[in-house]
């Protein structure tokens, strides 16, 4: 899929159009894991700050810290996310929100967008979200989660058998995500679209050459690991997710080589860091939302 014009998609579909003079906020939603300081540990200031600077009021930022080792619907996952988004909306007077997600964070956001009555707080959040920029979303799951769970399905009580993100890894098996996409989530093929734009940025490859300084971005050791895990995936992947999964819900906004410096690929570790101009793309996007 090529570049899609975001200005043209979704026009006329919302029952309540956005305001021209809304107070714009920005939320960063991390991926699998239990975060307590995602600003420093997951995203880094070098990534968050340049993007937030594009806001008319750069203080209107929430870097979410929740427990995304749980199933997406869990109160510590979607419930926590809803609470932190509402702190920005109600607490700081934000009435339009750009949400930037990474990896499994997109599934938790999609849970809220797809199940508007599950929690009476959700309709207000949905109404406030202008669009979602989904960086490397695990929309169709990953064969890596299959491999991580294979052989242990009948031993779930032994928690340490799983990697980090116990229930979240279970959830991101390809068979589980197919089930959840057909039962609970919107935006995949054959299902109604999500109520707001959901724009994915797709990472297509991993480069971990020790002689290439680009491999250092996002952490050289992370990229070495992701290069091996490509062996579980098809030819187009970011080392954790196949491109088809990243493109499986909503619309593709950009493949990495379409916007990165020198057409560099974004590994799964790099799609949440200031690598090859990703932060500039998102800065421009937030600037557009605020204009």
């Amino acid at each position, binding site marked *: 899929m090529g570049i899609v014009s975001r200005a043209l998609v979704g026009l006329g*579909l*919302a*029952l309540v159009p956005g305001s021209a003079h809304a107070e714009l906020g920005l939320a960063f939603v991390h991926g699998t894991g239990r975060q307590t300081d995602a600003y420093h540990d997951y995203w880094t200031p070098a990534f968050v700050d340049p993007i937030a600077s594009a806001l008319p009021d750069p203080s209107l930022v929430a870097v979410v810290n929740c427990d995304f080792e749980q*199933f997406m*619907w869990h*109160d510590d996952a979607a419930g926590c996310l809803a609470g932190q988004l509402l702190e920005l909306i109600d607490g700081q007077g934000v009435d339009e929100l750009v949400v930037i997600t990474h990896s499994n964070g997109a599934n938790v956001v999609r849970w809220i967008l797809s*199940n*508007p*009555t599950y*929690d*009476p707080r*959700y*309709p207000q959040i*949905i109404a406030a979200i202008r669009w979602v920029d989904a960086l490397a979303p695990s929309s169709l799951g990953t*064969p*890596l*989660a*299959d*491999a*991580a*769970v*294979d*052989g*242990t*399905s*009948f031993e*779930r*009580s032994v928690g*340490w*058998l799983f*990697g*980090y993100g116990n229930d979240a*890894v279970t959830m*991101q*098996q390809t*068979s*589980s995500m*197919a089930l959840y996409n*057909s*039962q609970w989530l919107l935006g995949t*093929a*054959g*299902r*109604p*679209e999500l*109520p707001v734009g959901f724009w994915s940025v797709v990472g297509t490859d991993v480069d971990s050459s020790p002689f290439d300084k680009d491999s250092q971005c996002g952490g050289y050791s*992370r990229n*070495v*690991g*992701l*290069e*091996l*895990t490509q*062996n*579980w995936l*098809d030819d187009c992947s970011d*080392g*954790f997710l196949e491109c088809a999964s990243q493109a499986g819900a909503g619309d593709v906004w950009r493949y990495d080589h379409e916007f990165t410096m020198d057409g560099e690929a974004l590994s*799964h*570790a790099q799609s949440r860091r200031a690598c090859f101009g990703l932060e500039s793309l998102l800065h421009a996007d937030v600037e557009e939302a605020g204009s």
Partner: protein
Amino acid sequence: MKPAILVLTFAGACSANGDVRPLAAIAGDLAPSHLVAPHDAGPVPGMTASASHARAIDPDRELALRPASHPDRSRRWWTKIAGSELATGIALPTTAPGATVSLRPLDETRAAVGIDPNALVLVDPDGVAHEGDAAMEHVLGWDELRAGESPFAAGTSAFRIDAELGHGEWQLRVDAPLGESDVLVHVVEPASALVLVARTDAPAYLHGHTVVLDVDARVGDELIELAHATARARSPVGETHDIELAELSTGRLRGTLALAEVDVEPGAAWIIEVEAAVDHEGVLARRNARVAFAYGVPSAGLDGRVELVDTARGDPTLAFGLEIATAGRYAVGATVWGTDATGRARPIGAVEAASWLEPDADAIELPLASLLDTPGVAAPYELRDLRLVDQSRLAILHRQAIAVAFTPL
């Protein structure tokens, strides 16, 4: 699966607010044949405040009539091996070059350090032993996998067999003391033509339904005979059930599983794992597959009554008759379709409403907001993909592809 229908009567209703025609659920729809009070592990979650939501959807978007089950087309297999067996060597049959192998200690102490990749020895199909990484590409120990933030469990090591060394009856040995504790050996062969396919006949079932599991092995489009196959199911609360597989025709097996669990683990899926062996090009090749399906205990059901009702807000609202076995937060949702100038049905919106309901409640209302004012479409309208959801237990209790036709006055 051919579910029986709870609904007792269907009749076209010409009420004061218009003509409403409930349609019967048909094969392929999900509908309970009876109500059952689930066994909740504790107080069920569920906000008591009512909520409703209506929005327009893209009239040109292609929507599936009903969801389909997702087959697993597996090129992978796994086995649990005692550490002592790995010390003497195990068979590692491969059907294509470049298999990726991972080793995971199933002992917490061993998992803390993993298996040293330098202690691995691969013996190729010609009997030549390759020590260390001599026959491997991309060897990674646990430290490297952990650094990559992979989802693998502690202690996992992995490598790819050098694709230039071909495939066949490999052997794997670990020249290091592993003790008697088990190691999970997992192999994925992305370049293999041999695929084990497992699928259920629906993505979701209810108490009293029977799952039909189909299993076959293929090379390309050709079905091939299975030398051995077993299947086992696990419920969300951990109950296991063996599924007997019977041969339908060459290379094609079928098993069934009757579902009667009443214990609830909200949102969690059942899984079925299949283990199979196939004689393939002189190698007894192995495959495992896993499929998941949703399951609900029918704590409530639609009784077949649907009416257009007056509400204080004045928006068109459909009221659905309901029987409830136990209290919970219940939701009804659907897509709304109208008829365009050419007579074609087009999706115009999605609606959903939820409330906390006690067993004495007999209806749930679904406001349609201003969707029926959508330009370019008119009556007759339809509700498609109608869903009754037990939100407290995260179960879909009724799902019907085409459910109601209506024309407001």
